[in-house]
């Protein structure tokens, strides 16, 4: 999420990005290319920089506007926005959603709170030091899930091909083939959905529109909150060249640090490297990277919407070591995973253990099961075996357990002669 928003979305109708367009040079006022008014949804094939129909200056103007069809949607400070919607007294206050306890972390900070420094995943005590006036609201996942469904329903009116990434993020395939229609233009359908979400759900979203997922995600981040940004083919390569490597989906702290060691800070520095070299340097990921740095991304918007894994994790109040303590911690997580599998009517064929060490290294260990399962005690058995192999005295601050290789529950836990006997 962008960290540069200065006002809170719910409170202020105008955002800085459009202020820049307040007084465009007279020469640009006409003939600027295909233009869409985000307020009244009027479209001008060769439009001005403010809307002749309603006078709004919230217009999107881009030469390729009519031809781009992959979108990325990101809700603005989602959890905080939902809490503000439901409690108007919070509207103008800095709000932090997360667990308030000693080792709690910030799940979401609203845009007001962000001005003081708090960010997602920051330890709560640190966030409170930075922003002592913040109101801390506990997370209410059930509520966010329900709001997320409402938002999804609105986007479904724009296209049936939606790939949710998380509760507050999704990719949309707006192509004519995906939608089965070519009218309205993708940008217009998106702007309408964006407006409806503000009106009907009461929160704001930012939209990125481009010709692939990688660029669409970058675009949604450009103009947050309440943004609508477009990256076209003409400027894509030049545009990504200036970005820091950490903007690439898949370049985390570790890879970024490795690249920094090699003197690579911007994506531009990777653009001249042949794919072979990228693969040699960064492994299998190098192949995708080679495309990304050129602004290319062949990944499809995955319509089936099924998640690849189901997991649960917890951060310890105090770092823990020893197999027994870790096993005790994993028990309730297995129950949670089992319950969620049962709720969804699915099962997993691989158990995945995740551990974060005291110095923030993340380990994951997998184990394939003889039969897919949705049973908590089976997951737990394998989780414990995985823990046994890792619990060598190191201290861990987080443990997570999940299942991958998801399949239908019908294939799971084949009927057993002894079930009920033991």
């Amino acid at each position, binding site marked *: 999420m962008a960290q540069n928003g200065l006002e809170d979305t719910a409170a202020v109708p105008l955002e800085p990005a459009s202020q820049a367009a307040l007084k465009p040079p007279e020469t640009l006022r006409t003939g600027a290319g295909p233009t869409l008014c985000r307020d009244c949804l009027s479209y001008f094939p060769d439009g001005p920089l403010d809307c002749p129909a309603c006078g709004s200056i919230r217009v999107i103007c881009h030469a390729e506007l009519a031809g781009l069809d992959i979108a990325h949607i990101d809700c603005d400070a989602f959890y905080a926005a939902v809490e503000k919607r439901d409690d108007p007294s919070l509207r103008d206050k800095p709000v932090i959603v997360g667990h308030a306890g000693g080792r709690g972390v910030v799940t979401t900070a609203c845009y007001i709170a962000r001005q003081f420094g708090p960010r997602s995943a920051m330890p709560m005590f640190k966030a409170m030091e930075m922003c002592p006036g913040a109101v801390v609201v506990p997370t209410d996942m059930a509520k966010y899930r329900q709001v997320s469904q409402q938002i999804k329903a609105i986007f479904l009116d724009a296209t049936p091909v939606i790939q949710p990434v998380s509760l507050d993020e999704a990719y949309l395939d707006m192509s004519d083939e995906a939608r089965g229609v070519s009218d309205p233009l993708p940008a217009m359908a998106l702007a309408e959905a964006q407006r409806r979400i503000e009106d009907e759900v009461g929160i704001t979203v930012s939209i990125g529109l481009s010709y692939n997922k990688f660029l669409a995600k970058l675009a949604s981040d450009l103009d947050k909150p309440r943004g609508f940004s477009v990256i076209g083919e003409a400027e894509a390569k030049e545009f990504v060249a200036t970005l820091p490597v950490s903007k690439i989906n898949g370049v985390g702290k570790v890879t970024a640090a490795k690249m920094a060691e090699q003197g690579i800070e911007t994506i531009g520095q990777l653009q001249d490297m042949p794919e072979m070299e990228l693969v040699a340097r960064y492994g299998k990921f190098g192949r995708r990277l080679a495309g990304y740095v050129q602004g290319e991304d062949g990944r499809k918007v995955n319509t089936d919407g099924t998640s690849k894994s189901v997991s649960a994790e917890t951060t310890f109040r105090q770092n823990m070591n020893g197999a027994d303590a870790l096993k005790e911690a994993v028990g309730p997580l297995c129950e949670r995973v089992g319950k969620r599998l049962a709720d969804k009517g699915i099962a997993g064929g691989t158990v995945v253990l995740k551990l974060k060490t005291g110095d923030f290294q993340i380990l994951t260990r997998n184990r394939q099961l*003889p039969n897919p399962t949705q049973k908590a005690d089976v997951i737990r058995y394998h989780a414990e075996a995985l823990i046994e192999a890792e619990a060598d005295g190191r201290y861990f601050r987080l443990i997570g357990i999940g299942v991958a290789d998801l399949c239908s529950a019908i294939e799971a836990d*084949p009927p*057993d*002669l*002894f079930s009920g006997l033991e």
Partner: protein
Amino acid sequence: MKLTIERAALLKSLGHVQSVVERRNTIPILSNVKIDAGDASVRLNATDMDLDIVEAATADVSTPGSTTVSAHTLYDIVRKLPDGAQIDIDAAGDGQVVLSAGRSRFTLASLPTDEFPVLSGGELPHQFTLSAAELRGLIDRTRFAISTEETRYYLNGIYLHKAESDGTALLRAVATDGHRLASVEVPLPAGAEEVPGVIVPRKAVAELRKLIDESGDEVAVSMSESKIRFAFDDAVLTSKLIDGTFPDYQRVIPAGNDKVMEVECKSFADAVDRVSAISSEKSRAIKLALSGGTLVLSASSPEHGSATEEIEVAFDGDELEIGFNSAYLLDVTRQIEGEMARFTMADAASPTVMQETDDTSALYVLMPMRV
């Protein structure tokens, strides 16, 4: 220690003991085979601390003594030596063993014999004798059903125990993985009257099975609650038993199934085999539809298509459709030597019993699949 041994004799004995040795060992001595030269024979011993095999072979011993060398290395060398080779083994000391045959000469690192762990049998109070054929039957007709799932470690072996049927005392072997169960019995041998129920681990079963074929007619069995020993003419296998409680398997053998189908076993197995070519690799599911004297086997998979085959059976119940894992059906039919097999079923969700029509000493239970 110094001895000369014929390649074939060494290879056979070594073949048996070396498979006990785990490929990856954290304790170096467990990678080794102990060679113990007596007067006119040599004893080879390997162990993984749970399972121990000692096998004797004839050798020309000039200096009695003992040593240990890497089992897999030694086996590899002996395997590659030419047939008929005479092998000299000389443990002169200094942690080295020299092996020579023809123009080949190997110097192998050795470890002291006194480091080699002894899996002491302890007291083995129950002793009885089984014929090789009986033991083979007990193993062959049950081992396919042994569970490989570590979750239920107590199913990772064959449950050998005393039983009774119609007033006859029996020694019964049972194995199950929860999806199928196999139970085979022989008359209780003398000396086994008081045997405790024990679970013989899968690895011991596999090694035991190899020894049976190359030994005499009789096997001396002795056991306690924690160990079991099988003594053949030239070899002795000692194994720890699985420390666990085998579930009350009698309760999962259905007694009230009333739908009886009799089928010619070979043609049934062949049909299952053919139709299963289509079933999905993951589930291997196959459907049996019974109506009057006709059984229709069918399978379908989204990738491969579908298949059906019809065979004649003797069946007088109501129509029934029931699904099974075809691999499990074939595992059972492979054990049936007689001409006819009898299926006793209740419904599509309850366990089915399979038996050879003319031999009720073996019984198999199969859990149906949802198809």
